[in-house]
């Protein structure tokens, strides 16, 4: 085995940057040095990750670098380690490379913000946490990263902590994520009790020792964490509100990387999930439902960032659906391509926001293509990719999922297929209203609108270029990920024969599906087979409908809204999830707590405590009355007492 010790640089380089900025940022580095330190920190780790990625490509295999023992647990040691294999290498590259460009963008976006060093300290810390999550070889370190990214996400959503809305959104994200983490942690405990270890590879090896329902329970509990982190129904409500954070945060954390952690986790633990068809079905249905529901909500929102946020939730649903269909590599490929084009969409939106001075309502924009040509063009690339138009990455990563669903479960296919049409519609509704359309922009602002500086447009161009070519690497991805996500190609050191047999339980559902892995072949098939044409036409129809309604205004959107009032209300009010949660879990919980405090602590417990105190005092006072100081009274008391005792004595006798 070659020396891969340099891999420690990958997570720790951003951490060091974060510490440097945290300590020296406010007094010495300030702006722009803090940003530059952060960019250097993450760029170093990106370079190391790419080198390591290529190393795995050439030599294959798994490298497990144990850094130190975190905690001994009987015979088992929880370690801090770096597991470097195709899956973690790919994810690390996605995280670090996209982070690098978002960091560069952020040096422009955050210009002049008072908390500039704080922002970059947090952002670097985020990359560290995300990489600890990615590179972990056991469930506890995964949980460390998992909660760590949650913390930074919380801090960055609440970045503008003077605003009540930002603080509430941050609070909501932390709490909702913690609900998922609760489930996740119980899953970790169950796994430890069952397997006596928390290292992935040891768990995979011992899988056949556990019963079907035990594995299912572990998988479902762990998936509960993914539901929270990746904003799937029913723990999705935090993600749209998370858009209170600065836009680079939305791009990096709430689109490209952190929210995809759930998808990554399921792929990472694929042998566990694939061993239980019940678990896979749960992943499939939750993913599909989220993909569909989020797409419907995205149709009618007016906030530019929230639309993209619902789109993120929807696309994460597609990834989970792919995994639930037993097509894990498709899921990871869509994760990669989505990370690229969704980061692009968010950054372009950020560029727009800088241009229009942070107006978020898309009905107050328009014509921006004239003033911001690069932003508009790159956004268009992202939108086409999201809609699934070839040759952009989204087409090669999303359409195979929809087609696979058709062969496996037609109900799922139906929802994913409709969802794809809706996706194309809502993103182009956004595009037309913001960049084309009439003239809704405030004239005062209009005077100042101009294209963003180079450090913001450069990342846009790079990401747009990546979005354009990434899809053609489809076959490369399949070859690369096969040793970790395809039982037939897995080495025995990763999962022994018995485990592979177990996985057939879940994966057999996808056995008869044959979708070309080569990009060109897939493109040709899509253009020739009825199913492929149907999918493609649906996307085009979505775009065309948006064009007719919002650009040509042949169909009146007002009329549409009136005609489908109940549906519109349902979508606009986000299927009433938020209303319900706030009524029951927020107001209800607070009311119950207050009630319990008054009744339980104050009335009952303190009533008894203070009451017994008062009783003692009261008895004392009453008894004091007998101490009159008159001899005759004392004699009387004495006589009475003697009579009583005498009586008692005689009675007993």
């Amino acid at each position, binding site marked *: 085995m070659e020396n891969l010790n340099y891999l420690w640089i990958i997570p720790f380089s951003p951490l060091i940057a974060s510490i440097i900025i945290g300590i020296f940022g*406010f007094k010495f580095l300030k702006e722009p040095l803090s940003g530059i330190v952060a960019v250097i920190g993450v760029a170093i780790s990106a370079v190391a990750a790419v080198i390591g990625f290529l190393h795995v490509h050439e030599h294959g295999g798994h490298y497990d670098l144990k850094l*130190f*023992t*975190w*905690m*001994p*647990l*009987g015979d088992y040691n929880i370690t801090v380690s770096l597991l470097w294999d195709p899956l973690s290498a790919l994810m690390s590259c996605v995280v670090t490379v996209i982070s690098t460009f978002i960091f560069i963008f952020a040096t422009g976006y955050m210009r002049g913000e*008072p908390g500039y060093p704080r922002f970059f300290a947090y952002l670097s810390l985020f990359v560290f946490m995300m990489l600890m999550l990615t590179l972990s070889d056991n469930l*506890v370190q995964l*949980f*460390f990263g998992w*909660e*760590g990214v949650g*913390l930074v996400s919380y801090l960055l959503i*609440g970045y503008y*902590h*003077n*605003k*009540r809305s930002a*603080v509430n959104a941050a*609070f909501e994200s*932390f*709490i909702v994520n*913690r*609900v998922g*983490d*609760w489930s996740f*942690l*119980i899953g970790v*405990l*169950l796994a*430890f*009790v069952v397997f006596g270890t928390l290292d992935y590879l040891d768990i995979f090896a011992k899988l056949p020792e556990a019963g079907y329902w035990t594995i299912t329970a572990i998988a479902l509990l762990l998936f509960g964490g993914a539901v929270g982190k990746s904003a799937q129904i029913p723990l999705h409500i935090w993600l749209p509100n998370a858009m209170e954070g600065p836009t680079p945060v939305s791009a990096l954390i709430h689109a490209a990387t952190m929210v995809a952690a759930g998808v990554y986790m399921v792929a990472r633990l694929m042998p566990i999930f694939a061993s239980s068809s019940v678990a896979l079905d749960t992943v499939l249905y939750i993913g599909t439902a989220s993909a569909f529901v989020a797409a419907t909500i995205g149709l009618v929102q007016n906030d530019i960032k929230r639309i993209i946020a619902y789109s993120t939730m929807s696309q994460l649903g597609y990834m989970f659906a792919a995994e639930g269909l037993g097509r894990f590599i498709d899921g990871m490929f869509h994760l990669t391509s989505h990370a690229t084009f969704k980061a692009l969409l968010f950054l372009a939106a950020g560029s727009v926001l800088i241009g229009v001075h942070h107006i978020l309502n898309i009905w107050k924009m328009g014509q921006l293509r004239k003033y911001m040509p690069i932003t508009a063009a790159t956004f268009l690339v992202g939108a086409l990719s999201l809609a699934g138009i070839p040759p952009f990455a989204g087409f090669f990563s999303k359409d195979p999922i929809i087609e696979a669903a058709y062969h496996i479960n037609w109900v799922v296919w139906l929802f994913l297929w409709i969802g794809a049409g809706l996706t194309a519609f809502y993103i182009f509704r956004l595009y037309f209203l913001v960049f084309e359309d009439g003239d809704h922009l405030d004239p005062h602002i209009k005077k100042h609108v101009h294209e963003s500086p180079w450090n913001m447009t450069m990342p846009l161009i790079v990401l747009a270029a990546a979005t354009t070519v990434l899809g053609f690497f489809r076959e490369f991805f399949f070859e690369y990920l096969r040793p970790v996500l395809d039982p037939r190609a897995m080495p025995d050191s990763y999962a022994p024969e018995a485990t592979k047999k177990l996985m057939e339980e879940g994966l057999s559902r996808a056995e008869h599906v044959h979708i070309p892995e080569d990009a060109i072949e897939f493109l040709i098939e899509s253009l020739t087979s009825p199913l492929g044409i149907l999918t493609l036409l649906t996307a085009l129809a979505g775009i065309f409908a948006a064009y007719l309604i919002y650009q040509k205004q042949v169909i009146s959107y007002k009329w549409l809204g009136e005609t489908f009032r109940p549906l519109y209300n349902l979508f606009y009010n986000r299927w009433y999830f938020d209303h319900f949660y706030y009524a029951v879990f927020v107001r209800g*919980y*607070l009311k*119950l*707590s*207050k009630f*319990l*405090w008054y009744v*339980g*602590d104050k009335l009952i*417990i*303190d009533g008894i*405590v203070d009451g017994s*105190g008062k009783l003692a005092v009261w008895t004392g006072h009453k008894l004091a009355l007998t101490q009159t100081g008159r001899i005759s009274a004392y004699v009387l008391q004495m006589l009475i007492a003697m009579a009583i005792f005498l009586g008692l004595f005689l009675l007993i006798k």
Partner: protein
Amino acid sequence: MTFEFEPASFPWLTISILLPLIAAAILFFLDKKWAKPISIVVSAIVFAISTWMLFAYDYSSYKIQFYEKYVWIPQFGVSYEVGVDALSLTMYWLTALSFLISFIWSTNIKKRVKEYFIAFLVLEAACIGVFVAWDLVFFYIFWEAMLIPMFLIIGVWGYAERIYAATKFFIYTFFGSLFLLLGVVGLYVYQYFHYGKLSTSYFDLINLNLPFNLEIIFFLLLALGFAIKVPMWPFHTWLPAAHVQAPTAGSVILAAVLLKMGTYGFVRFSVPWFPEASKYFMPVMFTLGVIAIIYTAMMAIAQTHIKRVIAYSSVSHMGFVTLGTFALNMEGMNGAIITMISHGLTSAALFLAAGWIYERAHSYEMKDLGGMARYVPVFATFFMISVMASVGLPGLSGFVGEFLALLGTFKQSILFAALAGSALVLGAAYTLRLYHNTMFVEDEIDEEKKHKWRQLKDLTASEFLAFFPLIVLMFIIGIYPKWWIDLINNTSAAILSKVLGG
């Protein structure tokens, strides 16, 4: 059960108890300007001794170390007997640390300065004594002795309703102590009748081999005493009252040290002395632990007084210690001890933060606070780290203990572990609410307050000196818990040996 001892080459523990007492006595005759420097120096020496011991302690052995014994009343079998195992040692160390920090922090005492420091010095001696004494007479003397200075600290240097709170504290705990005394005396008498032996030594009383029904009775007697001290639900209402009224340093000691005496009692006495009763009462203790976690989390979110929030959070955290202790397995026991240490750090830090806020804003009510973060970045950062450690974020100290305690509980009962896990959500809810309402949402405070906040000074040198070690320790325990687990592992095994050995 037999014990082995490693006699101390120098009476370090006795010195640690006597030094504060001697200092208190000397202070009595000196001018008040000497009070603070002397207190700091003395507590620093004690802390240095305890830290040195932490490293000098041989954790691979099962011996009671730094052991000293002097016969006192041989007719009744009473000796002065001190020594440490890892549990005593860590609690002793935590006590020394908390007092040092309290002394450094106590700059703003206006009235009766000398008496204030004398009370704290006496309290320190008593607290250390509780954790290192192995003779039950001395244990009980220290246990009771600690009540008086604490009663005075709340009653004299507290806020408006200090008399009510101090009385409540005193009567509550004294009530519990009586049952504890009754239990200990009962055991002593039993020992005389069955073995014809008179000894108040822990190492003799542990070997009584009580019949089951007596075990139950004695367990209940001692448990009542400990449960009030912890405090466990439903004996907890003295704690919020006491914390709300106590001065900052008093709250720090109350949370970091005094609460640990109750859990220390459970771990040190209840489990090894009454193994069968412990097993028998496991479901009861689990239920009480889970109620403490969930119910007091709800209490905490219903509060607007920031010290009361932290006080209730303490009860909630102690629920994990209860769970871990009565899981009666290694993970649980280690988790209970680590949670005790970690809670000592986090609650101390949170009460320092609350006191800091009060000194600046002159209010503990959330409605008078908010929007400070931008003006005091260093304090805001320390406060945030403490909050995160308190809610059990991995990488900080809180997670280690809670994880182990949950794991231990899970091995006994999936249901109770799952219920206790709700603290992940509920704890985060009230703790973050506390932080938000004091530090964030600047837009909602009025101009006058903003003006006031702008004048605020960030942590002063002495405040920094008190706060910073706590933060560092939260990280140390969170990042490298192995060292601490190694330290306490054999002690946990020894404590559980009777329960597990059957």
